[in-house]
């Protein structure tokens, strides 16, 4: 890169633009592949989805050009506050005026065009978050600063949940990567990871395994924090043992064999059984279960550790103990959350994912058909327009949320590799460009864009291959639909504009 380049164009990251264009093109031809038998016609038949997507692509490119060449980059910093306010208003408004599309109230319908404010909200939230975090004197460790950042992220997230678009809301969790980059303690990331692990282990393996795993993790972390090198090494060894112990579960999760694991780890070994003999004096010994040992040990160890933490002024131990209490509460309330807070379809999707039930005709249908489509692709795929699963309509929503199936079936593993590599390239490029920016606003914003794309990618592709529950969010740039394509185009091109603007001054 040439610094202080006299021409604006040369400071545009054309690699990024190229990756963007390639992904959009791949999306377009795959939308045609997914729909070509149901609606006869060519790629450019404007009655078909591929033709409509072509229109969306052209308009999106127009928007991109406008952002790059017509609008001043400085504008975005200035409009971020009012834009955020307006979008929040729209998010609330849409709940009341929208028509019900597949159970959610998140679409504005203006004649033939409908759009989702939740898509724009990603842009406005990113802009305002960047503005706040890049502000002079912002410190992540200051509670007020941190909480306001959380509020900026949390407010649209909550409203979107109220719109019954939980999937779109999950994307906002990705902003935690931005906060991490800007100084949030890594323990928070760990904490979120721990919560997810606890939730899954409670549901699949049972409460006591979940608590045991949590104790293991907390002990290992505390040992790691000890100044003595011996403890550090011990912790690393312990952590390694834990990872190895959990590896079978993770691997079987990957290959979809969780049920076998559950059978091995029958919950009954943990809880007393009703049919134990109790007519001997000593028979109570037979009734002792790991659960009792666990409870007794915790009852003795907990006050001791509290006293230790207080005496040694070991904040980390104190926080760990608090985390343990919260974690136990979470484990015990998992069942409640699972059955009372989650909606029926959400619960059954998670059950299908974790192998707790097999419902190939109902909740598991989408995922099963999607796995069949992708699985049948093999190494090279069946060839463009030759996929039988995606064209016969076995896979639902094949041009929108399940577009990755078409890639998997017709282009095979190599095609999947190409698409995922392109995304990784796009994200890496965004992150490295962001790191190069001297202005904090552009840097934070770049991370926001990268996080959004990553979350969409991971959740969407994870869903089509049975790694994530079915969450209806589009694959960025590939899925059919104008709202999503426009939103990601704007998101990416604002960063490109900011990045180019940076370069002007150096």
């Amino acid at each position, binding site marked *: 890169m040439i610094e202080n380049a006299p021409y604006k164009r040369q400071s545009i990251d054309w690699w990024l633009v190229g990756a963007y264009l390639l992904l959009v093109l791949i999306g377009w031809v795959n939308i045609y592949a997914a729909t070509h038998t149901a609606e006869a016609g060519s790629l450019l038949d404007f009655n078909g989805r591929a033709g409509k997507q072509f229109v969306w692509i052209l308009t999106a490119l127009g928007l991109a050009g406008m952002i790059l060449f017509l609008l001043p980059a400085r504008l975005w910093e200035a409009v971020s506050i009012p834009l955020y306010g307006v979008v929040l208003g729209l998010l609330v408004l849409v709940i009341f005026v929208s028509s019900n599309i597949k159970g959610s109230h998140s679409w504005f319908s203006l004649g033939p065009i409908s759009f989702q404010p939740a898509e724009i909200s990603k842009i406005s939230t990113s802009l305002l978050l960047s503005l706040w975090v890049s502000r002079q004197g912002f410190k992540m460790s200051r509670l007020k600063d941190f909480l306001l950042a959380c509020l900026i992220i949390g407010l649209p997230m909550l409203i979107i949940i109220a719109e019954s678009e939980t999937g779109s809301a999950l994307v906002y969790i990705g902003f935690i990567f931005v906060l991490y980059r800007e*100084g949030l303690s890594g323990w928070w990331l760990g904490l979120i990871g721990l919560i997810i692990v606890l939730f899954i282990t409670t549901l699949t393996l049972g409460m006591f395994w979940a608590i045991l795993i949590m104790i293991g993790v907390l002990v290992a972390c505390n040992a790691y924090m000890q100044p003595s090198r011996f403890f550090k090494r011990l912790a690393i060894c312990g952590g390694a043992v834990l990872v190895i112990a959990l590896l079978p579960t993770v691997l079987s999760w990957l290959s979809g064999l969780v049920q076998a694991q559950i059978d091995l780890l029958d919950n009954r070994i943990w809880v007393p059984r009703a049919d134990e003999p109790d007519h001997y004096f000593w028979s109570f010994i037979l009734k002792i279960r790991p659960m009792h040992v666990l409870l007794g040990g915790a009852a003795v160890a907990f006050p001791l550790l509290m006293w230790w933490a207080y005496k040694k002024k070991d904040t980390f131990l104190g926080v760990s103990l608090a985390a343990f209490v919260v974690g136990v509460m979470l484990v015990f309330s998992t069942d409640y959350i699972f059955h009372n807070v989650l909606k029926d379809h959400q619960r059954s999707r998670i059950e299908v994912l974790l192998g707790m039930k097999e419902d190939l005709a109902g909740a598991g249908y989408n995922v099963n058909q999607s796995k069949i489509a*992708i699985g049948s692709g093999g190494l090279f795929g069946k060839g463009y327009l030759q996929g039988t*699963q995606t064209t*016969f309509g076995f896979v639902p929503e094949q041009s929108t949320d399940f577009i990755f199936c078409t890639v998997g079936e017709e282009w095979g593993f190599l095609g999947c590799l190409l698409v995922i590599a392109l995304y990784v390239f796009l994200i890496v490029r965004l*992150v490295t460009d962001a*790191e190069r920016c001297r202005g904090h606003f552009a840097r934070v914003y770049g991370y926001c864009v990268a996080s959004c794309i990553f979350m969409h990618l991971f959740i969407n592709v994870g869903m089509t291959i049975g790694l994530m529950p079915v969450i209806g969010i589009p694959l960025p740039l590939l899925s059919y639909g104008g709202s999503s394509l426009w939103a990601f185009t704007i998101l990416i091109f604002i960063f490109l504009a900011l990045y180019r603007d940076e370069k002007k001054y150096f």
Partner: protein
Amino acid sequence: MNRDGRHIRLLIGLGAAALLLLGKIFSLQILNGSYKEDADRNSTIYETIYPTRGVIYDRNGKILVGNKVAYDILVSPREVQAFDTLALATVLDVDPDFIRGKLKEYRRRRSSIGFQAVTMMRTVPAETYMRFDEVKYKFPGFRGQVRSIRDYPFNAGGNLLGYVSEVNQSYIDKHPGEYRSGDYAGMTGIEAARETELRGEKGYRIFLRNSRNQIEQPYKDGAEDKEAVPGSDIVTTIDADLQQFGQELMQNKVGSIVAIEPSTGEILALVSAPGIDVSMLADIGKNWNQIASDPYKPMYNRAVQASYPPGSVFKLVNGLIGLQEGVLRPEMTYPCHQGYHFGAGHKLGCHAHKSPLNMEESIMMSCNAYYCYVLKNILDQKKFDNVAEGLDHWREMVMSFGFGRKLESDFPAELSGSIPSSKTYNRAYGRGRWNSTTVISLSIGQGEILATPMHLANLCATIANRGHYFIPHIVKASEGVEIEDRFYEPQYTLVDTLQFPKVIKGMWRAVNSGPGMGGTAQIAHVDGMDICGKTGTAQNPRGADNSVFICFAPMDNPKIAIAAYVENGGFGAAYAAPIASLMAEKYLRGETSRPDLEKRMKDADLMARVKHD
């Protein structure tokens, strides 16, 4: 903290996440082969191979129902090119608008039809198809598919055989998993009763289709294809000649004939008139409106579905019960002065015959008064506390002959008839407010008694067997077809075998006493055949009396037991007796010796007498 390291950590995390996704995709696409099979299964299409339906034979190996070839006309709308609608309509013998309408419908459903073929016309006759086959090349997209349909070499037993037609949705719902739209199934008669054996098993050929829904190749080279299993043939107990003869005798009359082989319970003929012509059965769809609008209900099988009062033939039952109870001895005589007088001025009338008479004579001359005494003596026995107990005891004995309940034959839609109990009269008159004279018409088979012609034939077979019957049935055991054990088990009545010859003597005299002796069934006499019979003349509230006759022959070691019931036929001797007698002669001798009588019976037209709704 070193913030510069953080973006590296995040990128490492990104790489790990991408590897996780790719790892799972790798396991789906490369390591796990089962998804390819699932995908193949998803993209297979099944072509059904229809089995030929089992043939129905008569007891002598004659084919009652066979199969002949017909064709379905299929069309793949996507392959159809512009063609001469009028020419196709002429070739297929349909209205051009029919073809236009069908094509319009396919156009509307084109997204669901896709590249598949749909059936435009069903069971087109072979001649029509041959015409079409010659000019098929002019109509791309149209083709024929072989289908077998029913063929009837004999005009015998139309509504006994039943018909086969395409299943409708409610039929499919009633037999989950067995039928699909476009399949055929037996709807009535033997076709329905033996559907599971006759239909066979459908087979299929599996093909793989490509992404444009075109058939590419057989799935796994046909390794998983299934051949169709033809339906089992059914051998019936019917004698085709006898059945056809019975139908001729019953033409232009309403009623039925049931003939049973007493030693086995096999039904030799089951005629219900007016019946249905077999030529209508093959294409029931086309003829359905005509059949349904016929006021005489030809699909209604009167032999098992019509309940009538049995009339005087029921005297045999009362006589047998009287003998068994010991209140009647054959030599006992009762007077008859043109009927039975009871109460103040009440009378149950009778015709002119000698008086007093004994039991044999009472059967021979069918005296009403005699059986009024018999029934009264049965019901008013000292061993009963009251007449209600007596009536229920009587009922129990009557029902042991098969009356008042379904005989549980293998024939569908059989009615049970009815025999009254004390509850019937308690309801009508009040408890204790009726006596044996109240129910006196039961003695002569009138009043609250209802029985089907099948019940009467079964009574006749029971008497012929001297006290037991075999459940009447229409299907013989043959290769691949079993019948239930119960059809081989004799069903005993509550009347001892010893009592039967006394009654049979009277039945023999009714037919064979010679002219001028007063036997009511003189007309049924055939030299050397020893026919034993009993006439009946049952009241019909709608017009003339019904003519009833039961007989078996020969007296010793009987081969056939017949019940004939002719609605509005008048005296038993008028129509039922000659018809039954001719049937017996035809069956036992293979031919008849009374051409005048036969012609008179065949030509008789009683339809004008029959009132219908």
